[in-house]
């Protein structure tokens, strides 16, 4: 028997992270009671090291390893880098918040790192099984994170809903994959592509499988009509967890879509384009209209996420590089905005007080003009008003849509996003036009102060100089095509 050791090099970051997660758990057991910050520091150190490793192992081409189940290409490297940065910022924002709520424990950080590992696996998967493993590692960690506050009924309810619906979606996905396997005889993405392009297989089975896969993906992206979990989870879970759920996993989900739909089932783009159009329209309609009726900012942002994901899907319908890079840019911008927004929400929350009602933002400009200004930038960016980066995200996607020949769809998307502007404006109105109801001091720690300011200013800076970020996304897509 001939046993060959696989090439581990492309997976060094994942391997390192896995080792470190165990380390974080152990360290927390050993010193967690005496020095509660240990796990946090270790987690940050781990993410930073991962960044260095990924950076150190950068290579221009595409490398497959583990018998073709794992791939390392430019898209994967760039997405992973973005994931590290996002998770690192998220943890920094969350630290005070979770410490006030008694969940500053090793579990939070090790779950967060496990989820990160899941995302990395999803991003680097080149086999349906690897994709699924990564997804489940991410999802299970997220379920547990939502449920981390055992004493909170809302969080528990949210976790159960998230888990049951998430499991259902995973089932859909697996079922779809099994149909693809039945039709093509393989789960390896390259072989599946080849088999479909060969064209001798039953189209009916493939399309049914595709429907299930798209349904599973939309659940993970929280695209309507598979969005039901999002508002409840956003409202019930603690803000730190919502920030985690709403940020980095969207990057991974984009990677997932790229691997599964574009690389794996790209030959069937004619079939999934129509599905994505329907998903995009329903998401934008439901997300934008339902968001208006919310009085809880987290619920409102959940619906806003739904509409943003709808808009992002529009980028994919062209099924060309132009559109993929537009969608990727949209996701990156979306993550940047979500981080800042939840950063502000957590900033305003104190021990025993959640700033999750819209009215909690009244008169923020009076209480602290600087953070009100940052929130203003974030809201205008979400609404797609220049000179914030949000407009270029919208511009790129709209350009891709028009490029694909769907003028009516672009007009519709624009009109629906006009509805969205209303509820972002409402936040600005509360912050600037109304008088404050409380004068509680807003005094963030030094690192959060710097990060949050940088986050807000990045919205403006990328709004004035968007070229670098756009070029990064274009480069990632082009290199991996």
């Amino acid at each position, binding site marked *: 028997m001939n046993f060959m050791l696989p090439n581990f090099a492309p997976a060094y970051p994942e391997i390192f992270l896995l080792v470190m997660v165990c380390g974080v758990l152990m360290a927390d057991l050993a010193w967690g009671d005496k020095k509660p910050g240990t796990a946090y520091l270790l987690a940050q150190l781990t993410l930073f090291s991962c960044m260095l490793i990924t950076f150190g192992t950068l290579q221009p081409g595409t490398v497959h390893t583990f018998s073709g189940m794992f791939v390392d290409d430019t898209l994967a490297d760039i997405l992973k880098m973005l994931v590290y940065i996002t998770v690192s910022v998220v943890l920094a924002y969350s630290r005070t918040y979770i410490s006030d709520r008694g969940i500053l424990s090793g579990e939070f950080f090790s779950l967060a790192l496990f989820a990160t590992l899941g995302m990395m696996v999803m991003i680097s998967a080149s086999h349906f099984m690897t994709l699924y493993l990564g997804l489940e590692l991410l999802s299970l960690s997220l379920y547990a994170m939502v449920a981390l506050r055992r004493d909170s009924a809302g969080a528990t309810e949210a976790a159960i809903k998230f888990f049951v619906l998430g499991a259902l979606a995973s089932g859909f996905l697996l079922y779809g994959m099994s149909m693809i396997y039945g039709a093509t005889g393989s789960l390896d993405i390259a072989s599946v592509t080849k088999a479909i392009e060969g064209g001798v297989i039953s189209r009916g089975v493939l399309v049914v499988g595709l429907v299930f896969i798209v349904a599973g993906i939309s659940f993970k992206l929280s695209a309507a009509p598979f969005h039901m979990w999002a508002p409840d989870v956003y409202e019930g879970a603690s803000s730190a967890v919502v920030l985690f759920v709403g940020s980095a996993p969207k990057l991974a989900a984009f990677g997932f879509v790229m691997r599964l739909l574009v690389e794996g089932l790209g030959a069937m783009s004619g079939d999934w384009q129509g599905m994505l159009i329907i998903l995009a329209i329903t998401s934008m309609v439901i997300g934008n209209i339902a968001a208006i009726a919310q009085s809880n900012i987290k619920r409102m942002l959940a619906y806003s996420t739904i509409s943003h994901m709808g808009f992002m899907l529009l980028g994919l319908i062209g099924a060309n590089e132009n559109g993929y890079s537009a969608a990727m840019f949209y996701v990156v911008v979306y993550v940047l905005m979500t981080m800042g927004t939840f950063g502000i929400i957590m900033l305003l929350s104190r021990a025993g007080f959640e700033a999750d009602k819209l009215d909690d933002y009244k008169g923020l400009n009076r209480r602290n003009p600087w953070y009100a200004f940052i929130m*203003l930038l974030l809201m*205008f960016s979400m609404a797609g008003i220049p000179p914030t980066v949000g407009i270029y995200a919208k*511009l790129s996607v709209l350009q891709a849509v028009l490029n694909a020949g769907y003028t009516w769809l672009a007009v519709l998307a624009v009109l629906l996003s006009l509805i969205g502007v*209303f509820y972002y404006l409402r936040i600005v*109105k509360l912050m600037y036009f109304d008088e404050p109801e409380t004068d509680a001091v807003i005094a963030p720690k030094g690192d959060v102060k710097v990060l949050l300011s940088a986050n807000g200013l990045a919205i403006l800076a990328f709004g004035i100089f968007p070229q670098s970020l756009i070029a990064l996304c274009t480069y990632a897509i082009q290199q991996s095509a």
Partner: protein
Amino acid sequence: MLFGFPLLSLVIWLPILAGVAVLATGGDRNAPLARMIALVGSVAGFLVAIPLYTSFEPLTSTMQFVENHVWIERFNVHYHLGVDGIAMPLILLNAFTTPLVVIAGWEVITRRVSQYMGAFLIMSGIVNGVFSSLDAILFYVFWEASLIPMFLIIGVWGGPNRVYAAIKFFLYTLLGSLLMLVAFIYLYQVSEGSFSILEYHKLPLSMASQVLIFIAFLLAFAVKVPMWPVHTWLPDAHVEAPTGGSVVLAAILLKMGGYGFLRFSLPILPDASHQLAGMMIALSLIAVVYIGLVALVQADMKKLIAYSSVAHMGFVTLGFFLFNNYGLEGAMVQMVSHGFISAAMFLCIGVMYDRLHSRQIVDYGGVARRMPAFAAFFMLFAMANSGLPGTSGFVGEFMVIMASMKVNFWYAFLAATTLITGAAYTLWMYKRVIFGAVVHPAVEEMKDIGAREILVLTVLAVAVLGMGLYPLPLTEVMHTTVDDLLAHVARSKL
């Protein structure tokens, strides 16, 4: 010509940087400092804009003071600036108005002074950007960005119903401009990857796509001008906005709509413009006649001037779509003149509001007895608003009426009714407010205008009279540009 020196960039970014500096002074403890920086910044903003006029080459219609740098490579977007005889006067108008607004708000604004002054300065820079962009995306960015400061000005310092007015203002304007964005991206596709406005001027387009793009542009610009029937946000916004906000809104922001027609609709879509000229003229005449009548019955002075603005801007759009020299030039003169007159009218109403805290006509009466100097200024501006010869209000209206006479007698007839209605609503309002016996005891307490107010009103009075008596300095810089624009519009793109 100043070659190589980025004058337009300076005109755009100096006020914005000054605005940021004003914001940085922080809370109301530093209000005097904020006012000082704002004044210096706005005056400097006007001074650096003056070379645009003095070094302007009036005998060419090519873009001047051009700056062109790649901005977003991926979409071939350029930081492309330049002005012609249409844009340059509007930039000057804007730079001229900003110091007046700063001075007008000097003592009146006591809450969040730095944010108020900062918002005006930043808006001033942004609007200069609107008038000098030669790249569609750059234009769009400035265009939309100008919404944010105005939204905050109305919403933070406005009257009791300010939230409604601010959100209505924002959403109305945004609706139009989003469709304009789609049109830009469409043109980007058709032109195979260019956002250059000057490229679009040369781009051949089929009739069907011209009409669709025209409608998208029309929504954006008609809301801004505003034309009937999408004018309803304007009275609300004016009534609720603080005095400075009303001044900038009427004097500057409305001009962005008019400018849009000249920079985009006419030259990019000449065939659709001719095709739909009848509709545009009809809408303009409705604004002139019907909105003039609406203004007659207003009980609120600011609302009255707001409706009068809509009527006057009707002349502007009427002049555009007559496609002759007098019409276009008259429309341009009317835009600049309306900038002076409406600014002055809103400032006058602001003067009274600061003393009595009412805008209702019935709350006044006999103001002349207490404020003779003010009454004299107000008289001049009321006369200008009703188009009296010798004031700037007359020149533009007269030119447009002449131009419409060339096209169709009935256009001219309907447009000329403004000479009656305009005089009626303005002077009737003036009579009820200023003359008569003092009925309300509060009016008895009113003090005449001080040095600060006299300064602002004098500057505007000089502008109004100067332009009325000798409009040549304004018309000579736009002559060539207008001629070439008309020649361009006359050529079919089909």
